[in-house]
């Protein structure tokens, strides 16, 4: 079942309300402030961010600032068992699967950091319309006249 969350706006900042918690949204990740303003107040389908997890060093301890879910194959392993030595030299750009295997980090159960799903944000893309139009012309479902009207 799809993960759903509500987009909220508060004093110019945007949040996703999901699973009884709030996560702040970076407008740059979802196409800008205008996109989020249109979605504000709506219940939307969510996906998790497709970026590595982010860690920071605070008071000589590694602190995970934000998680993404590991690929499906490793998710249960990370959620249930993973406790590995910490490698402080591994930066946030290290692919998370490799990084996780070498750290003493307890991963949380389930992912954090949700954003509205791309198909909620972008609508139908022109290239998709053109490809479909081409199919319908080749299949002779629409006439050449209609095709040219739309291509023009």
């Amino acid at each position: 079942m799809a993960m759903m969350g509500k987009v909220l706006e508060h004093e110019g900042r945007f949040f996703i309300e999901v699973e009884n918690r709030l996560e702040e949204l970076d407008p740059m990740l979802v196409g800008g402030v205008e996109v989020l303003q249109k979605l504000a107040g709506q219940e939307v389908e969510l996906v998790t961010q497709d970026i590595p997890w982010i860690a920071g060093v605070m008071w000589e301890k590694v602190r995970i600032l934000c998680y993404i879910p590991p690929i499906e194959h490793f998710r249960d392993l990370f959620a249930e068992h993973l406790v590995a030595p910490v490698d402080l030299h591994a930066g946030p750009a290290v692919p998370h699967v490799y990084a996780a295997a070498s750290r003493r980090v307890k991963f949380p159960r389930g992912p954090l950091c949700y954003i509205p799903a791309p198909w909620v944000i972008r609508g139908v893309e022109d290239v998709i319309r053109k490809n479909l139009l081409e199919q319908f012309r080749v299949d002779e479902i629409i006439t050449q006249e209609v095709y040219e009207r739309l291509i023009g």
Partner: protein
Amino acid sequence: MSASSGDAGLALPKTFVLELTRRCNHRCLYCYTSWQAPELAYPSNGHENSLAEVKELILRLQEQAPVENIALSGGEPLLREDIAEIVDFLRQRDIAPVLITNGARLSPEIVDATREETTYEVTLLSHRKEIHDRLAGVPGSWDDAVRGMANVRHARGSLVAVFIATKLNYMDLHRTAELAIALGADGMMYNRINLGAANMHLADALLPTPAMIEENLATLVELRRQYGLVVAISVVIEPCVIDVSKYPTLHFGWCPLAGPDSYFTFDPAGNIRICNHSPTVLGNINRDDFREIYYHHPYVQAFRDTWPAECADCDPKLKAMCGGGCKAAAEQCYGTLARVDPFVVLNRSH
């Protein structure tokens, strides 16, 4: 009386439907207009408001309600020669127009004259012209609709495709939506057929089964994911027939029960009804105050308060969501608000 709140503390609606004409160039099998069914004894006054009368109606309504949107319907609203003037007047009054049309008369000239701020809702029943034409009742109607939609897209107008699901076309939904996207639709309105008195006798041939509707809902989820197509479901799909919670990404519409989200409807003579499906005339805008009807008309109160007998044992959560199905369809088909609409009655009996 205030135009924003009334005696009952209920906000006034902002959306209305204007049926501009009873005339139509199609003979749709799924049409539910009350004036087609002699047994409903709908007022036979065939008067069609002139342009001046339509403008007067809009001004009167704006005095009585915070009007934001008006959907122009019929019959076929584009059969009116003054449609561009009506749309233009709505814009002048800061009202967003929606044109509900079969698309047959969406010529480049009509589109150019009406497209500013207008949303066009054009019926596309199948990617197969023979199916569309059969449901629309007129040969050539598919060609006309496709050409009309292409004209809207060419002019960069805002286009929504309307798919009415019946037993004859439900299996075409995916390909039809793809065609709608190719023709420029930004969204799709999906409605199961909502029967009326005039076509109740076609229920066996037209009314989809729950399994057919469920297949369509899964298709709509996929269309949204695959193409980003915005989907709205307007006619109620009762949760006692289909578990709609399985489709969280779809937006389901429920009966607004003559409340703030309702869309009271004015027929071509100015007669007022609760919605475009309702057969009951509550008054006329030329002599009656809309607020008086909205807040005090006994039929409106009954519409809000009456629950169909079939809902007596229903889970209160479902009941609150669904509002008792489409009471207007129940009234058309069974002559009472106290029954649930045929989609539930007939599917339960099967």
